[in-house]
């Protein structure tokens, strides 16, 4: 695989490529297991024991227990998988989106109602909001 990708300069974005998929396989498969109701019950009863059944790294395990949504992405999590854990917690995509971008759920929801996060200033790392569009 190429060392540098054409999307590596996009800010705040964790493209789920082969590198991340290798890193996050067990983390994501843990999340996937929560599709089954009996597993949700077992996880709810004892998170630590349930997590012992998956080959997570210590930092992945910690990110799960602390519900560190951005941390899970950085450790190879894929949002569609990690969101299974958010569903388990009764959270919405606005809750998780706010957490990952450092604002409250209410602020995130309002940002979406106001038209969402603008692409201007968010295309490239280091780009200022005033930069002309590409």
């Amino acid at each position, binding site marked *: 695989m190429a060392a540098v990708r054409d999307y590596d300069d996009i800010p*705040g974005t964790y493209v789920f490529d082969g590198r991340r998929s290798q890193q996050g396989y067990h983390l994501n498969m843990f999340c996937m297991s929560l599709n089954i109701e009996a597993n949700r019950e077992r996880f709810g009863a004892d998170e630590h024991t349930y997590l012992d059944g998956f080959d997570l790294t210590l930092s992945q395990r910690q990110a799960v227990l602390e519900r560190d949504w951005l941390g899970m992405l950085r450790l190879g999590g*894929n949002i569609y998988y990690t969101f299974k854990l958010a569903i388990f917690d009764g959270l919405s995509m606005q809750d998780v989106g706010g957490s990952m971008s450092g604002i409250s759920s209410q602020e995130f929801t309002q940002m979406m*109602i106001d038209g969402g*996060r603008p692409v201007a200033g968010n*295309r490239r790392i280091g780009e200022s909001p005033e930069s002309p569009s590409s």
Partner: protein
Amino acid sequence: MTTIIGGIGTSHVPAVGAAIDHGKQEEPYWRSYFEKIQPAREWMASQRPDVCIVVYNDHASAFSLKLIPTFALGVATEFQPADEGYGPRQVPTVQGHPELAWHLAESLIGDEFDITIANEMDVDHGLTVPLSVMFGEPDAWPCRIIPLCVNVIQYPPPSGKRCFDLGRAIRRALDSYDGSDADSMKVAVFGTGGMSHQLQGERAGLINTDFDHAFMDELIAQPGVSCGRPHDEYIREAGSEGIELVMWFVMRGALDDHVDEVFRMHHVPTSNTSNGLLILQNAH
């Protein structure tokens, strides 16, 4: 030979399904969106397709990282709504059309599209929400459905051009279908996903309305050119999950070169997503 009544491009936002399932359509957040899509539902009701081919992606429901088919075609008699973590959506079971689906499989593979054949495949919001968008809340879906699942979760997804070419191959298959019901069969093709949105990372919430409209304009007028857009441009301009839009090219490829725009709707936001709905028909 079947008759293609049209192509539908639509977002497949889970929150739209939840709003329908939990009776929230009249709430202020949702009312405007559901009012805007009403003409599309009326068009669909007037067209009465016999079969819909729904191009969608699975979101860690039927497939996981264990096995990642780029294109998986459902040939079963029926497909159950998946449990995505909330319990399955309380929507009708999806009835397949095995005869046409197997014809598609044979024709596509003969045409050098090496698709995966799925005999058992639960279907998640990627497929059921577009049905709810177009058909509302019937006791049973009013037509047979052939699911065509595309990987857009594990990078890299197939290119827009590959999707466009697959759509053209689907069209050749529909034109050569000679099943017992072929002459009276009306088919619609759905391309789902998008529009601009990013669910993940510090850039979550990205929306690009200008991109969305340009995408629809180009999909109509010059799909053979716009299908060449590279993946990093989707991610940069339309958000990491905006790349789902490559699936709209499968729908477009199944239509004629020249199409008429029957209906267009664009609405921000539905959940964290810019929501688009486009209906195209072969030009008269």
